[in-house]
């Protein structure tokens, strides 16, 4: 009978949510908005990329005569035999980005030191890097010439070099693969955070609605407050999962359609994969990029997806239950939504912290002390641990003991928080007409 009542509550909460007009609108509008955003960003980036930057160069020295070459992003206009002021004026009147003035001096160093870049708006680092690279290159070459290295010799040693990285079993590692893995884990973590904030809020509002409509006492004369709270959380999260599923499916369908319509080249990728699966590819000399692509693909396939997804479910369920029961307790404590702000902030804080720590610390060093600490701390572990997990468990990945400890911490916290939240909820739902302080909430625990 108890189970029966719980399932009744879950069903009602689910239907109440799913039938809600704004929920339905959000469910079907969001994917369109999301895909629209992606398309817009892609379009804007393309427009931005195709814009060429023109820089005026007024070179009075004997150096750098061959160094300013037009490429796809930047082109140069050269001024000759005029005064600096005239060059500045023409730059302004032409409306080009800026003017690089290289004065006439006796040595390369002096020339470089007295070079100025004039522009209306301060230039970004991309532009400066480009120009500075040219100067650095020349200065280096000049110094090498001074110690007797010829220009040809300099060209010969000026190779690009990337270090090869491997783990101890001899498998080749790829540069940036850690970041990529953390990014995948970060995606899962981010999903959890979004889910908690959106549907935790729904749980809270649903509790407030029961309080303000005064139905709460009618309900809890039939069921235990804890049953109601649990049913509400489960029902709301099922509605949330439904919404997320619709979002993911319809957004990926829409993206696919958009790609087809806008003719973004998907075939290029498939060709590569055909070649990768071709047994002849081992013999035929492939371009290096395809080789690397293949390695990345292999590496991604080696991510323990089953483990990752099952642990995602564990962290998701526990993390969500912890946070949503806090949300339920807040909803019970207040009379209207405007009073919730002061209580919500402390909940959002660890979530934000987890995301920031994840993106700044775990990306650089997935197994460093900060990453480990935050992946054990129960309020941040669902997010941070998931960012570390794509590296696998055990050697080279997260040590097994850390996973076990973080889950144990999470379960203990889950029990503790749900117990506390249920107590606040039980007292709060029957308190009308006042906004409690933290001190009062603490007192309620003893009622």
């Amino acid at each position: 009978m108890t189970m029966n009542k719980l399932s009744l509550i879950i069903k009602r909460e689910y239907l109440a949510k799913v039938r809600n007009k704004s929920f339905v609108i959000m469910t079907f509008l969001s994917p369109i908005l999301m895909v629209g955003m992606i398309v817009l960003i892609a379009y804007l980036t393309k427009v931005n990329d195709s814009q060429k930057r023109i820089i005026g160069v007024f070179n009075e020295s004997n150096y750098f005569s061959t160094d300013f070459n037009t490429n796809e992003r930047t082109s140069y206009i050269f001024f000759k035999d005029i005064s600096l002021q005239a060059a500045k004026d023409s730059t302004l009147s032409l409306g080009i980005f800026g003017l690089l003035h290289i004065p006439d001096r006796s040595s390369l160093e002096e020339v470089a030191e007295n070079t100025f870049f004039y522009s209306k708006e301060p230039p970004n680092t991309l532009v400066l890097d480009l120009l500075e690279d040219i100067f650095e290159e020349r200065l280096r070459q000049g110094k090498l010439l001074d110690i007797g290295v010829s220009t040809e010799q300099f060209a010969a040693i000026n190779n690009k070099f990337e270090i090869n990285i491997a783990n101890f079993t001899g498998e080749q590692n790829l540069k940036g693969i850690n970041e990529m893995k953390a990014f995948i884990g970060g995606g899962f973590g981010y999903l959890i955070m979004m889910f908690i904030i959106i549907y935790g809020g729904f749980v809270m509002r649903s509790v407030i609605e029961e309080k303000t409509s005064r139905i709460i006492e009618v309900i809890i004369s039939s069921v235990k407050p804890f049953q109601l709270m649990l049913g509400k959380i489960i029902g709301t999260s099922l509605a949330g999962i439904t919404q997320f599923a619709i979002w993911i499916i319809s957004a990926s369908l829409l993206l696919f359609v958009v790609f087809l319509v806008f003719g973004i080249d998907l075939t290029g990728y498939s060709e590569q994969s055909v070649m990768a699966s071709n047994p002849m590819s081992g013999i035929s000399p492939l371009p290096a990029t395809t080789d690397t692509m293949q390695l990345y693909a292999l590496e991604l396939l080696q991510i323990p997806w089953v483990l990752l997804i099952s642990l995602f479910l564990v962290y998701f369920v526990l993390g969500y239950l912890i946070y949503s029961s806090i949300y339920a307790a807040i909803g019970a404590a207040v009379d209207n939504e405007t009073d919730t702000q002061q209580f919500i902030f402390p909940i959002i804080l660890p979530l934000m912290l987890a995301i920031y720590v994840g993106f700044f610390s775990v990306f650089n060093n997935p197994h460093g002390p900060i990453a480990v600490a935050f992946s054990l701390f129960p309020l941040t572990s669902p997010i941070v641990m998931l960012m570390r997990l794509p590296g696998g468990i055990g050697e080279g990945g997260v040590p097994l003991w850390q996973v076990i400890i973080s889950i144990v911490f999470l379960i203990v916290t889950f029990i503790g928080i749900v117990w506390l939240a249920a107590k606040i909820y039980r007292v709060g739902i029957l308190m009308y007409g006042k906004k409690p302080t933290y001190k009062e909430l603490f007192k309620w625990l003893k009622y």
Partner: protein
Amino acid sequence: MVICLLSLLNSKLNTNILQIQSKYQNVTCMNNILVAKNVTKKYGNQMALNNVSLVIPKNSIYGLLGPNGAGKTTLIRIINQITYPDSGEVIFDGELLKPRHIALIGYLPEERGLYKSMKVGEQALYLAQLKGLSKADANQKLKYWFDKLEIGDWWNRKVQELSKGMAQKIQFIVTVLHEPKLLIFDEPFSGFDPINANIIKDEIIKLKEKGTSIIFSTHRMESVEELCEYIALLHNAEKILDGRLEDIKKEYKNNMFRVGLEMENGENFLKLISDKFDISSSNYDYNRKQLDFTVQLPTDDTRAFLALVSAEASINNFIETIPSANDIFIQTVQRKNDNE
């Protein structure tokens, strides 16, 4: 030796207590739907119920009276197992109160409402099922009640479209639908318009006739006085008075009578009897020759007074003025304060 004696004494004491308890239970539980024994409840440092004991007989209407904040709602919430007492116990129909008794109690809280965006019928079904009715059963009973209270057309409307009176009818239906043995109404008539209040009152009386026990809780004592057979007065978390309303009134009446006489020379007569009796609020109407006054008799023996009066005038009315529950409450509180 001493120890032996002590333990003997102890065991004797225990059996005595047991005997007293079983006797108490026999007397109090067989015919009572609800017995509260020494129920105490504190919220933090605030006392909500202080050692309150009540006996609510089966098939009666019981008034739980007292001003706001006296502890009525707390007691009702304990009966509904929404909160639990710090000490003391509640016995429901001869058994210690258990979660399964919830299905046998119907409760209309003071703070009552419905889900605004849910349809009326769906909501009533949901609430009935939460009380343990099967869906088919609930459906059938709801149809009966909806027709009876003439709100059948509203089944598929949303609650936010309902008038307040309509919503209250639905709340009432949901409260009584599962045919509980005990019905508890907290401030039942607040917010009802007079017509709906009467409809609901009639239905409650019919339910009582079918054998249901009913508790009314209110601070507006006059609103339920005529309905209640038993009352308990709560004040500052304590029970200050309880019992059969008739008995209480008998105890609290002070031999005051309202007298209406028809006679000539009423003023002279009034002077005459004023010497012998304690007369107040008198009035003589010359035109109708009607003399009205209130008299306080020294004993409840009215014969001497009536003999005197009937010799001089024809008696139109002679009514004992019985104190209202409100008067009784005020008197009791005053007495209590005087004692302290």
